């Protein structure tokens, strides 16, 4: 895979190791040698795990799936930053060339009460699933598909809906917020449905249900520090949070 720019690197890792939920975790140190600067961060962890297996130690568990920035599973905090130092990418899109040979890198899991640690860097994000289940859908009649152009949508609204829909549900917003608030995630999910005619019908009920589920799951409240927007691999705007607040107030006033 190497190319002309590739250089060999040694990295001192401090990785969070925790045997199971509720267990006491700790940072272990590992020196990763013979890395290529062109490796992705996850490939570097693969190499580390091969080393650990060779040393007869348990590999470090971490979540990953697509490895191309679309599934949102590769959750970890690198040197205090969710998905690492670069903006608008996921951990799997981060390359070792962003670091210097000989650097020490601290890797820890997303930390939030609503994201309990399963093992090492793997956290349980099913709280997000429950928020979606509570209202993140549209109800449509069965039958033949409608003609695509029978539902006119203006371009600005469709763009805003699309921007919000780029949320991959990775949880970096929760991980980076000092309050572990899920406001950016929930507001993005609300916006992507509410801007479209199919989603307008259930907008009020959806807003009420999803915001209440968010509170039930134990996420914190938003204090507009905007750390979430900076950490979001998709660059989703905090404007969505203000929109959610307005819509939640309106839906609460109208609720019967």
């Amino acid at each position, binding site marked *: 895979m190497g190319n002309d720019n590739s250089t060999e690197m040694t990295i001192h890792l401090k990785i969070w190791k925790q045997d199971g939920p509720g267990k006491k975790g700790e940072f272990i140190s590992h020196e990763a040698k013979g890395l290529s600067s062109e490796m992705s961060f996850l490939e570097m962890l693969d190499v580390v795990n091969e080393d650990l297996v060779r040393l007869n130690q348990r590999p470090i568990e971490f979540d990953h799936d697509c490895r191309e920035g679309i599934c949102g599973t590769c959750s970890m905090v690198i040197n*205090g930053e969710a998905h690492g130092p670069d903006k608008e990418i996921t951990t799997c899109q981060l390359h070792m060339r962003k670091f210097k040979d000989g650097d020490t890198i601290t890797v820890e899991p997303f930390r939030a009460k609503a994201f309990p640690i399963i093992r090492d860097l793997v956290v349980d994000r099913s709280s997000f699933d429950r928020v979606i289940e509570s209202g993140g859908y549209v109800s449509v009649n069965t039958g033949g598909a409608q003609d695509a152009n029978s539902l006119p949508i203006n371009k600005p609204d469709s763009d805003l809906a699309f921007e919000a829909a780029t949320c991959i549900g990775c949880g970096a917003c929760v991980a980076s917020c000092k309050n572990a608030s899920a406001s950016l995630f929930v507001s993005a999910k609300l916006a992507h449905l509410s801007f479209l005619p199919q989603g307008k019908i259930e907008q009020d009920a959806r807003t009420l249900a999803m915001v209440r589920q968010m509170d039930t799951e134990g996420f914190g409240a938003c204090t507009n520090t905007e750390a979430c927007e900076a950490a979001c691999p998709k660059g989703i705007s905090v404007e969505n949070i203000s929109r959610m607040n307005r819509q939640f107030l309106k839906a609460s006033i109208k609720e019967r």
Partner: protein
Amino acid sequence: MGIFGFIKSSIGQKYVVATTGLLFALFVLSHVLGNFLIFVGPEAYNMYSYKLISNPFIIVAEIGLVVLFVVHLAVAIKLTASNMVARPDKYALQAKGKKKTDPVTKAMWIQGAVIFIFMVSHLITFKYGTYYTAEYDGLVVRDLYKLMVEVFASPLFVVGYVLCMVMLGLHLSHGIQSALKTFGFNHPQYEAKVRTVGLGVALIVSLGFIAQPVYIFFFQ
């Protein structure tokens, strides 16, 4: 549920903190503007204070302020506590680069605590402080100006006061724009204006309040 559920929700509590905070910001703004009479002279300042406290509605305003203050404090403490519970384990490192959070926005509760202590001591020193009198055209009024000159003769007091006003300025610089965003004013049309208003009010209030004891200390 409905509107009562709203008040209990995290977003509803944010609205309460934002509303009470904004009203309090308006109060400190009017307070600093009124206090600029210090630069006009003792009579202008004392007569202004006399007109304010001899107004029968002042008690309504005072009760209103106390209620605002208590509600702002109580709900903010409750939210801060649940926000801390939401992140029980801290990170080993804090973001330093592009994803760093403005430390001012993270320390709202610390600034709030300082402002609370300041407010209590401020009321003890001035509102309930020594009652000097002055006479203007046969009218006997409280000589607050004299008390102020006496208090701000102490460099320690001036420094403490200035530091507290810096804290207030920081609190307002995030608080005002955050409150407006909580209300929903985050939109390309408003974003820049919301920031400007927040920073502008914070600067006027903190620099205005800082100028007063400094002026008294050096020139009176």
